[in-house]
């Protein structure tokens, strides 16, 4: 039984699985159910001046018939008055003193407004604050959410205002709708943030109904851009986490968010630098009980690897993430096909033939169809292994290079000495 407890910038929770600020954390009833189900923490649905929501809010995209590969919403922050939320936080904290409750906050970019709300929520005993500079729609039009979050100076300044009064750790939640997220992460750190969390949702439109020509979702025949999340965004989020983790100026813990559906995703985020994770879509799809396998699976993984504490995972892969220019140009892998496992769908052949390097040959041996990679032509792109439907039929094998490692950067600097 590994130790699953985390300490993220001073916020402690029994395990690294928090619910992200979103519909699942809308009320005390819900957060208490979540804690009962095993969630280690909850970032309360963003508090601020209560807004109004539209009817028809969410849409999802399926992939090959599998539901909720991605999720889209045009919902705003809480539509309930602050006092009601604070009462429920108080009550929840009383019932679950060891679970983390973080208040997500969003107000207009004015010092007094931030001071006011921070004081109010800290008064009821939250374990930390998360500043929502991320929501991509609705609020942005009022200068809040991502409208702030896309401007490093505003992120820095508002973080600073919060830190002026906050006594609990402050997490700054970043928007992914930005050219370079490390810029806002750095700004948050400059403003005094104790941690950063990412990602909020990505600007998106789920689809167009081919019968009515309405957007999906639509509100009385009209649509607006929503925020995208769920499994589909995981690689985008993971990169942003990794970029921040390897940036020396972003020297604070990271709370990873975006497409986390199971313990494996969580472990990947943690290896890439996240101290804990937050989940929204997976809980909305399946209910709170999915945390059971998240906890169990992560624990079994750690036991299996002989790792005593989940905190020991944090950041282990960060140093392996670098720039393209620092990759070894002379490292070589080639595809190898195991014809005993291969089921002869020929997908690898046609993928390589049409869209890669035309080096998988089809042939017949004693009447049996076979495939073979012409290794000398194979560039090791991985495509065949990616499209292959059976485990173990295609392996990517390292081919020792005859020349020593050299990166693009090394090469260019070497060559530049000879450019006369």
């Amino acid at each position, binding site marked *: 039984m590994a130790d699953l407890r985390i300490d993220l910038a001073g916020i402690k929770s029994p395990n690294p699985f928090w619910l992200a600020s979103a519909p699942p954390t809308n009320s005390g009833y819900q957060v208490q159910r979540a804690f009962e189900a095993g969630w280690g923490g909850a970032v309360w649905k963003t508090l*601020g001046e*209560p807004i109004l929501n539209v009817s028809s809010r969410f849409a999802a995209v399926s992939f090959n018939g599998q539901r909720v590969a991605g999720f889209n919403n045009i919902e705003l922050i809480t539509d309930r008055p602050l006092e009601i939320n604070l009462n429920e936080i108080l009550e929840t904290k009383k019932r679950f003193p060891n679970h983390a409750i973080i208040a997500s906050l969003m107000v207009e970019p004015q010092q007094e407004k931030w001071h006011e709300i921070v004081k109010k929520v800290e008064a009821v005993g939250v374990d930390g604050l998360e500043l929502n500079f991320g929501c991509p729609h609705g609020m942005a039009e009022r200068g809040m959410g991502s409208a702030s979050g896309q401007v490093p100076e505003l992120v820095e300044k508002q973080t600073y205002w919060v830190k002026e009064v906050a006594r609990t750790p402050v997490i700054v939640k970043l928007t992914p709708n930005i050219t370079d997220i490390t810029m806002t992460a750095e700004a948050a750190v400059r403003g005094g943030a104790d941690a950063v969390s990412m990602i909020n949702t990505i600007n998106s439109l789920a689809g167009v109904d081919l019968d009515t020509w309405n957007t999906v979702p639509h509100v009385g025949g009209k649509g607006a851009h929503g925020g995208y999340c769920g499994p589909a965004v995981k690689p985008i989020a993971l990169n942003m986490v990794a970029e921040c983790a390897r940036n020396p100026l972003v020297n604070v813990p990271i709370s990873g968010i975006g497409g986390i559906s199971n313990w494996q995703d969580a472990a990947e985020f943690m290896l890439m630098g996240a101290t804990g994770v937050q989940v929204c879509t997976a809980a909305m799809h399946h209910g709170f009980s999915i945390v059971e396998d998240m906890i169990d699976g992560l624990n079994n993984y750690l036991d299996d690897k002989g790792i005593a504490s989940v905190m020991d995972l944090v950041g282990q892969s960060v140093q392996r993430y670098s720039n393209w220019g620092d990759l070894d140009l002379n490292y070589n892998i080639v595809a190898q096909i195991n014809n005993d496992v291969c089921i002869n769908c020929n997908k690898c052949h046609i993928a390589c033939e049409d869209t890669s390097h035309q080096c998988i040959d089809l042939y017949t041996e004693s009447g049996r169809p076979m495939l073979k990679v012409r290794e000398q032509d194979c560039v090791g792109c991985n495509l065949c292994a990616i499209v292959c439907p059976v485990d173990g039929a295609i392996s990517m094998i390292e081919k020792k290079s005859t020349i020593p490692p050299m990166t693009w950067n090394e090469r260019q600097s070497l060559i530049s000495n000879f450019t006369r």
Partner: protein
Amino acid sequence: MSDHLLSLDEMKQVDGYLASGFKIHSVHENLSGMFVEFKRQEEDVCLQILTAEARKYLAAKLLEQTQ
């Protein structure tokens, strides 16, 4: 949880004031919801509206009053 009954109640209060000759004088929104000031001659009452439904409703009444 269910806000429905509360919102019905709030809308009923709005209707009540309007029916008894009050007019919406001012509205003000902050962290705690919406504060509506009704006026009837010298009478002056303030109502705090908490629910989203009632806040939408109030805006509709406001529109009616301006038209």
